């Protein structure tokens, strides 16, 4: 059953295969809106496939490059690349195609393909590929593509969300400053965390699946230590009026202060001690965290604008003008064992002991000392005690294997001589005269695991207690808060243990009071405390502004998984950081760990699997700052494209959909159809699409004139400008070039000279245009990557070049003839790095010669010609009938004749088709728009019919004489496409011939049905007709009538019949070039015996001048 659809005048082509490209091009030429969807991000790369090589040996991407660039420049054609199709559904207006466009992160309209981003991209995965895929300057569309996957596990598992992969990549590239900058975005204490972080990132590292996790913390330490602090930076001014108080300068307070400063607030940190750092200074030994590192990182915050008030405890006062207060005061009360004898002299809490040591109140300790506890703090105390001279025993109630402290801590302590006693718990402390003498311990065993799986130890029933003599005991079983500190904030502000109750938004029971770190969440790690500080900062900002701050980057496509860990990736052991040996370590201030060397960092970072591919190091964004083409925001989209007609050109790409109005431009039978067949299928699909679109599609009928709008004539006045494109300095620059450019204006005829960062960028082209107009320039040198100013697309043309030419010459009133171009980028700038002197001399030579040429520029021809929009069909085959039907249904006028050896005996009745029964075409004359078919009519008489295009059936192709000139034998034209090693055949698409407008209903040697071939010929005929004014080509040959001796060589040689023969008054012939047909190859010039043929663009004298400039003058 046929369903009537009121179709949208738009076609959706799915699959940029040769068939898809052929269909898109033809529909584009018809003026029909097209959306082309393909999974590949780069048409050039996709179509370079050997599978689609043309029979001539040229790969499809280069052979069809003019067509591909026309797609880029056609405002009616929309590209969705890279994208996939989820579903296609019938709608009353045609189809709805649901697609998902993947993010490329690069805007093709702004990208100049300068390559800076590619140079800056440090990420190299295990296969050595960069995350930013720069496919060279032939990419279509002209932009690189960034491959980005979901958030790497290291980053996901970091409470701060630090972009580990990013700084791994930067460190591997030796960009330590950039790496440090990246770390600091999320972690303002890199040197500290590089030493004492509990590194949850390493636990999540996918390298665990392969061998061992990456030594992320050690690399971070190297980065933090290797970059010298920048001391000169002035304090940035606050951008917001609010002042925030942060109480406490531990990790939570510092992290909160840092984020608040970045948000623009004025931040004051209160610290009751005389030095900032909190637990970092008073709870961590300098042998693990040298104070110079701590001071350096606090200094960084001071420089960033954080004000520290030291020796000053924050007390709320009616006078203060803080808009918000963040409590990050930590937990400073030691938890008690609550056993007998805990008040004996000689029994101290861990934190009070350590803070006394680090304040300098205790310088040395001798004698037997026990540390009770098994967390990191216990080991911290034990190792501190060793350094103070004590004989240390650490007593844990867990068996050794279950000790919760970091294994490295345990190992370090043992190395340093700490004795470890395990599975023992303190029963009581024994003393005499108020002084500790011994500790009574009872054996334990792991109990039943709790909800979290921790087997809390229980006493061994009937176990024998043992007593050990100690002079001193340090109890390190945790800290609690002090509820009395916060009495002014009301009941329930804290827990009974003095921990501030915080809601999920970071708020507390008091309105503008926030809390972070241990005081808000109980004892935890440095990194968690910092995360909590950052959360508090976000809460403050939310409270004051109502705005939310994103904590984590949202630009990663979370559904895109990591590249798999393949067997090709070698297993490499983790790099071990060297440490001091035990003997020389008995000094509090000597750091035990020595840090990695640069070589170690380089090799260790190379172990990073770069799981997210793009590491989000943002170096490319920085590199592209001028052009602003790269954004790390996910620009993927998922939407529905509505189109009147769908053409599926790639069977592998579209989901199944049924319906007789679904056009499929591929064969379900032929597994590997040749590229010519695919193109023919594409043409046929385009024709079917036009038919489906019905009356709304644009038509041409009758007669018309096509012309190039006349270019402005070159002014006799010579006022030249020079515009030099620096290509964003991607290839480097030399100050000498600036000096040279600045001096150009001193010499006539140069009125003005400047360099622009990038001419193909919108602003670049606009500024050139503006200057040409403002300065009244009549000629100009465009020194960029553009080689010619012509409306010519050769196989080396690029998206950027064509974009720049379109911006300068299309509809601007600037004539192509005004411009002299040189490929400065290719011929000079590319040498700047390898041979600067040569580059500078080439640069000057190119510019100087171009300036020399502007005076000799010539106006370019502006051809116009008449078109008869009728198509003549010659032949009786099925293919010819199909052409007739197609064109007729499209609304084109058609004349149908028999071929010389077979009169048209019968013909179906098609609309708009005038079949001349009994007729036979005899000969053919003329050229496109103006063919003459000489026909023998049924009654034997001859008639001449005019037609704009001609479609020949197979027998007509073999037998009909093409006689463009009455005085000459039939003109042989090429009717089979270019094939390797076959000389003399110009490029044309299947179904066409070397004569424009002369088409084949059934092109030979292509394995496609006659029906499809005939349909394809229909669209070729329909599109050969111009649909409006044309661009001035500017590269045609002209023949001087006086010089021409009428030898006829050029007439015979021209593959396009662009040259015709006329009679002069001297009794013989002369040749005339039809500028609308001439393609400017210039072969006629080189066979002309009398120099009559020449081209206004790069004529003989210009070429001679170039040769002399290069050879004679060097």
């Amino acid at each position, binding site marked *: 059953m046929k369903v009537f659809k009121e179709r949208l005048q738009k076609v959706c082509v799915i699959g940029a295969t040769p068939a898809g490209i052929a269909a898109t091009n033809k529909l584009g030429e018809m003026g029909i809106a097209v959306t082309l969807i393909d999974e590949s991000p780069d048409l050039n790369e996709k179509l370079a496939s050997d599978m689609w090589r043309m029979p001539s040996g040229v790969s499809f991407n280069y052979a069809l490059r003019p067509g591909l660039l026309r797609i880029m420049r056609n405002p009616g054609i929309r590209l969705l690349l890279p994208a996939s199709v989820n579903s296609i559904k019938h709608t009353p207006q045609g189809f709805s195609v649901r697609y998902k466009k993947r993010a490329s992160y690069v805007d093709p309209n702004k990208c100049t393909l300068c390559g800076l981003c590619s140079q800056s991209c440090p990420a190299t995965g295990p296969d050595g590929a960069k995350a930013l895929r720069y496919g060279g300057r032939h990419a279509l569309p002209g932009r690189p593509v960034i491959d980005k996957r979901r958030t790497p596990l290291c980053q996901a598992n970091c409470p701060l969300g630090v972009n580990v992969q990013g700084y791994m990549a930067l460190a591997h590239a030796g960009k330590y400053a950039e790496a440090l900058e990246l770390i600091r975005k999320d972690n303002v204490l890199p040197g500290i965390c590089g030493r004492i972080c509990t590194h949850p990132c390493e636990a999540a590292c996918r390298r665990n699946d392969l061998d061992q996790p990456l030594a992320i913390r050690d690399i971070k330490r190297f980065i933090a230590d290797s970059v010298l602090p920048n001391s000169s930076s002035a304090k940035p001014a606050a951008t917001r009026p609010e002042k925030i108080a942060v109480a406490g300068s531990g990790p939570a307070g510092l992290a909160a202060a840092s984020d608040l400063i970045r948000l623009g607030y004025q931040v004051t940190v209160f610290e009751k001690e005389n030095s900032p750092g909190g637990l970092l200074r008073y709870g961590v030994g300098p042998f693990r965290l040298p104070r110079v590192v701590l001071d350096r990182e606090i200094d960084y915050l001071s420089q960033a604008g954080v004000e520290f008030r030291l020796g000053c405890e924050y007390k709320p006062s009616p006078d203060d003008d803080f808009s918000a207060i963040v409590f990050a005061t930590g937990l400073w009360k030691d938890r008690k064992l609550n056993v007998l004898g805990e008040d004996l002299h000689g029994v101290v809490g861990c934190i009070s002991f350590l803070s006394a040591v680090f304040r300098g109140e205790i310088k040395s300790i001798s004698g037997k000392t026990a540390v009770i506890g098994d967390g990191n703090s216990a080991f911290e105390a034990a190792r501190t005690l060793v350094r103070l001279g004590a004989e240390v025993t650490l007593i844990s109630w867990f068996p050794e294997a279950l000790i919760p402290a970091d294994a490295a801590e345990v190992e370090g302590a043992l190395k340093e001589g700490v004795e470890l006693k395990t599975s023992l718990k303190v029963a009581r402390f024994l003393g005499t005269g108020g002084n500790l003498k011994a500790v009574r311990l009872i054996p334990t065993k792991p109990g039943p695991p709790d909800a979290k799986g921790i087997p809390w130890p229980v006493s061994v029933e009937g176990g024998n207690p043992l007593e050990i003599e100690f002079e001193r005991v340090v109890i390190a079983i945790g800290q609690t808060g002090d509820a009395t500190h916060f009495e002014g904030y009301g009941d329930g502000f804290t827990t009974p243990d003095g921990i501030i109750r915080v809601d999920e938004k970071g708020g507390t029971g008091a309105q503008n009071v926030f809390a972070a770190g241990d005081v808000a969440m109980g004892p935890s790690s440095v990194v968690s405390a910092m995360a909590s500080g950052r959360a508090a900062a976000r809460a403050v900002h939310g409270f004051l502004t109502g705005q939310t701050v994103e904590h984590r980057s949202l630009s990663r496509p979370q559904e895109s998984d990591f590249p798999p860990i393949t067997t090709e990736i070698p297993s490499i052991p983790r790099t071990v950081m060297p440490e001091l040996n035990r003997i020389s370590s008995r000094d509090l201030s000597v750091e035990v760990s020595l840090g990695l060397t640069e070589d170690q960092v380089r090799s260790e970072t190379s172990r990073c699997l770069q799981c997210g591919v793009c590491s989000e190091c943002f170096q490319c964004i920085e590199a592209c700052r001028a052009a602003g083409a790269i954004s790390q925001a996910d620009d993927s989209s998922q939407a529905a494209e509505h189109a009147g007609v769908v053409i599926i050109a790639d069977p592998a790409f579209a989901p199944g959909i049924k319906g007789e109005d679904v056009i499929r431009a591929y064969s379900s039978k032929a597994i590997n159809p040749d590229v010519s067949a695919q193109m023919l299928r594409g043409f046929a699909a385009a024709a079917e699409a036009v038919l489906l679109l019905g009356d709304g599609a644009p038509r041409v009928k009758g007669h018309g004139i096509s012309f190039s709008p006349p270019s402005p004539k070159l002014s006799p006045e010579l006022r030249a400008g020079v515009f030099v494109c620096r290509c964003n300095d991607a290839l480097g620059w030399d100050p000498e070039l600036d000096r040279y450019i600045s001096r150009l204006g001193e010499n006539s005829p140069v009125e003005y000279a400047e360099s622009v960062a990038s001419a193909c960028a919108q602003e670049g082209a606009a500024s050139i245009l503006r200057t040409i107009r403002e300065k009244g320039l009549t000629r100009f040198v465009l020194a960029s990557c553009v080689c010619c100013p012509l409306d010519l697309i050769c*196989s080396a043309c690029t998206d950027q070049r064509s974009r720049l030419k379109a911006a300068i010459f299309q509809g601007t009133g600037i004539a192509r003839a005004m411009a002299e171009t040189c490929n400065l980028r290719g011929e000079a700038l590319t040498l700047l790095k390898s041979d600067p002197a040569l580059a500078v001399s080439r640069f000057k030579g190119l510019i100087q010669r171009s300036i020399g040429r502007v005076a000799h520029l010539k106006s370019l021809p502006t051809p116009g010609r008449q078109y008869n929009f009728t198509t003549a069909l010659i032949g009786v085959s099925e293919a010819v009938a199909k052409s007739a039907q197609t064109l007729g249904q499209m609304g084109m006028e058609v004349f149908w004749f028999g071929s010389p050896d077979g009169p048209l005996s019968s013909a179906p009745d098609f609309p708009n088709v005038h079949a001349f029964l009994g007729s036979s075409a005899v000969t053919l004359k003329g050229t496109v728009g103006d063919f003459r078919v000489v026909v023998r009519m049924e009654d034997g008489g001859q008639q001449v019919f005019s037609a704009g295009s001609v479609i020949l059936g197979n027998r007509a192709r073999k037998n009909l004489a093409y006689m463009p000139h009455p005085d000459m034998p039939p003109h042989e034209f090429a009717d089979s496409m270019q094939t390797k090693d076959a000389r003399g055949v110009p490029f044309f698409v299947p179904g066409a011939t070397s004569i424009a407008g002369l088409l084949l209903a059934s092109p030979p040697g292509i394995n496609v049905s006659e029906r499809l071939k005939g349909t394809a010929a229909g669209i070729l005929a329909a599109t050969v007709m111009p649909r409006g004014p044309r661009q001035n080509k500017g590269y045609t040959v002209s023949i001087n009538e006086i010089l021409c001796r009428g030898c006829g060589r050029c007439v015979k040689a021209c593959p396009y019949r662009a040259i015709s023969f006329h009679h002069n008054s001297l009794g013989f012939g002369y040749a005339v070039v039809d500028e609308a047909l001439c393609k400017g*190859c210039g*072969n006629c010039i*080189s066979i002309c015996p009398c120099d009559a043929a020449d081209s206004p663009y790069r004529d003989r004298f210009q070429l001679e001048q170039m040769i002399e400039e290069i050879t004679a003058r060097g």
Partner: protein
Amino acid sequence: MENDLKILLFLCNWCPHAAFQNLQDTLAPLPAEIRMIRIPCSGRITKSLLFKAFETGADGVALVGCPPGACRYGIGTGVAERNVDDTRGILRLLGLGDERIGFASFYPDQPSEILEFLAGFRDRIKELGKTPIVPPSRTGKPALTPELASSIMGSHNIYTCQDCGKCSSACPVALSGKPFSPRAIANAAATGELDSPRISDDIWSCLTCGLCYDRCPSAVSFPDFIKEMRNVASANGRFEAHEGFFHSLMRAMISKDLPVEHWKWLAPEIQTDPESKMLFFGGCAPYFDIFFKNHLGISTSNILADALKLMNFFDIYPAIMQNERCCGHDLLWSGDRDNFIKLARLNVELISDMGIEELVTACPECYRAFSRDYRENGIEVRFKVTHIFELADTEISKGAVGFSRLNKKITFQDPCRSRRSQTGRQFMRNLLGRLNVRVFNEMRDWGASSLCCGNCAWTGCDSYSKAMQVSRLRQAKETGSDLLVTACPKCQIHLRCAMEDPVLEDEIRMEMMDLTSVLARTIQWE
């Protein structure tokens, strides 16, 4: 000094350009000695442009296009190969060898292949070393002032013109329909209108055939006047035919170190004697044959071989110069006297060094240059200059020599450089009379009234030249002859060129043979 090498690369827009740009974009090590000129198609580059590079000092020239079957325009690869092949033939004659010019073709996705080719080409040129061609200076023309014009007019009796118009009515250029008049040139010079087209254009159209001088009651030496004017007027190469190829060739030959190999093609049965005091001077025919081989199919070097055979027939075994150069006639007559003099001096020096006492030539222009133009330009020629026709006529007159039957009706085209000389008046007609042919008929205009072949000194070729040639060929046809005998290689070239006509075709097509060849091929002892 390696970077002093200058290698020119003509690079087609299409396939190879894409590959080349890929090399630029990837910062590949393109040889610095190679400089690229981008062209629309390899078939666009004429032999003249290829050779121009060598004239101006290029050490190597590479033309790079698309592989056969992949030329965007179909014909370019073949045209380019023929042009390179022809130019290579010229280089071979000049002793520059085969390898300084290269042609290659690449697909767009063959950047490494093109790089390999370019590096290899550079290396080969480096091995060959610098070109022996020293680019000749082309400056030195004095500015054309009214005083200078006046003095030239004075020295050639132009002021004695009585304005009778006999010159114009005899001038073949004017008769061809071209708006051209010798008198108008003279008048423009006399009135100081030096910028007018009468001076700037018409002096290059004159054939310098001298018919006007023959008719002039005041014996105004118009050809010499034109020659002088050309030597002072600026032409910017615009009137050089064949894009100045032959002018480039002549200028290149001024380089003394050029190891010309002028005679390598000569068949071994032709005997010459290096010790002989008589020199056979061949002229430029071998170059002409290469340059025109693809279209005109002429073989003017046969004239030289036949001249030598003729001399051998008379038991004369002359010396030949392997490093023979052009006589320079066309440089002088196309306005480059400076370089003519340089070339003439070099010729005289080379010939004198061989101890030559007599020079024989079969070319009327060489004969004219050595016997007259050299002397008139202050170059002392100490050897006797003889035209082959004089030598042949003299030898035949000694008796016992006859001619075998040539079953042709013949007519004869007098060369303008000989028609008024003794060679023309006496020897050519004597020889024609001796031939054993069906019939010899003179054309309507013959002898001293004979019409020029239509071009002089490779200048001013256009549709009017063709008209002259067509009318001359019609005259030849009118005689009912089937063989047109000529006596100058250029007559053969120009008349053959005119026969290439898709409209007139058989109406003007005719077999041609040089008189020297006719003589050599039919002479026999009786």
